[in-house]
């Protein structure tokens, strides 16, 4: 690879190249072979299909919200319908898309391969977690059909327990079940990472993708059960009127906030950490350099997971918590910015003097770095006590977490899907079209959410479907951006589906990447490796790749 080339893409001769006949997709036929599979790669595919489905349902609600906000008057839907829109949007996007997005698809597919293992430690529990996800998703759809729920995705008490006559218990059950799906995924990852590494795969030879999933798994395992009990208490209070969160009976609504955010704040790190893992892999591959400060990046993931457990009260600064505890939580909140910044700086230094090429995954990764930085820094604004009182419950919050979740996480997800698509399917996506989609997504995203920072700063509250006329121009911009963003998300679906049949044959290692997953055939065999590899080099060792004489890992399929 010369430093001047514009792409590192290296495809086999298309006239002779074939996707290997024997691989995990062709290993068995029939619907049942998929629905009863224990293969982590097939389960990843099942997840990929189901989360994409829910992403578009959640996206449709986002579209409806933006459509209503096009005009200051409440003219599209009534206010309670609008409440249902943003609730369904939040519930679906948080619990059915963002939490499982990267871990359950790319993580599931790649972690065993990256560790040199044949599968996750518990294949049946892995399949069970997909079924739990599907049951949770079905319950959400049921709620939707029955008339929806309008608590907001946060199930705030006593609103959710006493004042609403919508399907709170069904939705709560859905979140409870989907939560267990997440617990089992995390548990499986932790055990796999501890016990299934191949010979020579020490902790500090693992790809950073695995490190960030390890950190996210800790959060899943420790945080999700607390959400589960919070939700059980809400359901019990609704069903039996027992008063644990009801102030008229001596209960404390703030207790619910503590229990809920003890999970739901770490949950944002469950969502973002796996995305950061994707970015580490992509940035290294497309700048042909080992990730700068590997150890710092690895530990920053764990630090984010650790600090992430001690910041939840910043969601409650205006809810009457003690000023002294608010001070402490404000400080801790700002501390989380440190490991996040370590990552951003280390990726930037990885780029420095690297041989950078601009393939689609890298474009999305650049999008991630810019937008996540803005999202993260506005998080520091919100973590400071004075600013928070002005900005909380306004569109500033909405813009902040969409910058992190959509600008950050969704960009990372798309980056990862494009990066590993040739590995997962054996075929390349169309390069020009996909670059276009990345650019369209970036433009659409900024157009949608930058105006919301201004709206929020000017005082437009979130969760209202009417607003003063002077805010209209910014809302129109935002709605226009959402339309562009929608196109940006439709494009990959179309061309990725197209590429399944017509895409160029990718070969084993189209990106000349160093990861173990690139040393085996694409798509991999059911057992991943014909013999278990022995790791004798660091992660991201491009010298090793260049001087590798024999295929260290047998790939014949």
């Amino acid at each position, binding site marked *: 690879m010369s430093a001047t080339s514009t792409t590192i893409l290296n495809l086999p001769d298309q006239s002779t190249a074939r996707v290997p006949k024997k691989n995990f997709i062709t290993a068995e036929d029939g619907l049942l072979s998929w629905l009863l599979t224990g293969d982590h790669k097939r389960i990843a595919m099942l997840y990929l299909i189901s989360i994409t489905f829910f992403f578009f349902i959640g996206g449709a609600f986002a579209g409806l919200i933006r459509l209503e906000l096009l005009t200051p008057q409440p003219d599209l839907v009534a206010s309670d319908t609008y409440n249902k829109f943003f609730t369904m949007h939040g519930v679906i996007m948080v619990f059915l898309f963002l939490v499982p997005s990267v871990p359950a698809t790319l993580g599931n597919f790649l972690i065993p391969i990256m560790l040199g293992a044949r*599968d996750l430690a518990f294949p*049946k529990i892995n399949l069970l977690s997909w079924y739990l996800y599907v049951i949770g998703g079905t319950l959400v759809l049921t709620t939707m059909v029955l008339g929806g729920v309008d608590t907001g995705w946060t199930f705030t008490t006593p609103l959710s327990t006493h004042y609403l006559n919508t399907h709170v218990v069904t939705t709560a059950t859905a979140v409870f079940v989907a939560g267990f799906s997440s617990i089992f995924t995390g548990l*499986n990852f932790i055990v796999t990472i501890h016990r299934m590494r191949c010979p020579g795969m020490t902790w500090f030879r693992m790809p950073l993708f695995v490190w960030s999933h390890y950190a996210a798994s800790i959060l899943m395992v420790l945080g999700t*059960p607390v959400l589960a009990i919070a939700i059980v208490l809400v359901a019990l209070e609704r069903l*039996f009127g027992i008063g644990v969160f009801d102030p008229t*009976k001596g209960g*404390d609504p703030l207790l619910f906030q503590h229990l809920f955010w003890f999970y739901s704040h770490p949950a944002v790190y469950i969502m973002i950490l796996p995305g950061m893992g994707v970015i580490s892999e992509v940035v290294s591959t497309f700048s042909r350099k080992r990730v700068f400060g590997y150890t710092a990046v690895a530990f920053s993931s764990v630090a984010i997971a650790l600090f992430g457990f001690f910041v939840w009260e910043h969601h409650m600064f205006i809810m009457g918590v003690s000023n002294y505890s608010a001070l402490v939580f404000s400080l801790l909140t700002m501390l989380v910015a440190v490991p996040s910044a370590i990552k951003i700086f280390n990726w930037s230094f990885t780029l420095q003097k690297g041989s950078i090429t601009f393939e689609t995954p890298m474009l999305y990764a650049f999008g991630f770095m810019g937008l996540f930085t803005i999202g993260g820094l506005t998080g520091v604004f919100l973590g400071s006590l004075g600013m928070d009182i002005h900005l909380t419950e306004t569109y500033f919050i909405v813009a902040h977490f969409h910058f992190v979740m959509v600008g950050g996480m969704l960009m990372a997800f798309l980056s990862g899907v494009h990066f590993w698509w040739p590995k997962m399917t054996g075929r390349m996506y169309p390069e020009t079209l996909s670059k276009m989609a990345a650019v369209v997504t970036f433009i659409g995203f900024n157009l949608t959410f930058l105006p919301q920072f201004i709206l929020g700063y000017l005082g437009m509250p979130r969760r209202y479907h009417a607003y003063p006329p002077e805010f209209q121009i910014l809302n129109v911009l935002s709605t226009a951006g959402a339309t562009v963003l929608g196109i940006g998300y439709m494009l990959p679906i179309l061309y990725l589906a197209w590429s399944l049949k017509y895409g160029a044959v990718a070969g084993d290692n189209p990106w000349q990447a160093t990861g173990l997953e690139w040393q085996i055939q694409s798509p991999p065999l059911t057992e991943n490796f014909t013999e278990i590899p022995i790791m004798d080099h660091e992660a991201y060792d491009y010298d090793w790749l260049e001087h590798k004489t024999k295929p260290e890992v047998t790939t014949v399929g």
Partner: protein
Amino acid sequence: MDNSVATTEPGIEHAEHEHVSLPQHRHHFETEEQQREAGSFGMWLFLLTEIMFFGGMFFAYLLYRNWYYDAFVAASNTLNIGMGAANTAILITSGFFMALAVWAAEVRKKQLLVWMLVFTTLFGLAFLGVKYFEYKEKYELHHIPGASFDVSQFINPPIDKATGKASEKPLPPDVAEHTQIFFFLYFAMTGMHALHMIIGIGLLAWLLARAQRGDFSAGYVAPIENFGLYWHFVDIVWLFLFPLLYLINRHPLAH
């Protein structure tokens, strides 16, 4: 947990995994040791999630006990300490038999294992039986939170015939209302614990059938060991619940 038979895998795996001796060995593990360690590590992690799950309720208990100390004392005094103590003994005995079951599996004594699992199950069922009578008593006293909850007992405590005085310090009505929070936590915590017992007894029935078939008599004991961890965990939760709910506020009435 899982012992799908690896011998149904197609030919190539056989050539690669000749060291595999047990039919319970799963093909993706390199060694039996790795499989056993992974299983037990997974179970410990699962128990960690259980601790966090119960932790939410313990946190609520801590908060409300500090806020509503008098109501918690009065409500706690109405719990049936005899039944609670009996259940503690029953549960510890059940745990003892479970420990013996793990030992029996390790020394490959099939009949002993089966009997130990039977005793574990019987004592587990006895616990639930006692719990039924306790809940029934709460129902008769209208101590179940909700519409039928009745605080009159705490406002006007019954008169003790021997002394002619109230058997308990009367509570003002607004304070007495808070006994409902105590009873809710009592039912939520013991109920969730009982649910874990019921799930455990279901698993015991499944393990019994497999033990009877001789699945655990040839050196493969992971499911028994891992279930043992779960069962002991459920015991330990009760060992926290019993003092916190029944004992901690109990005091001789000052005369």
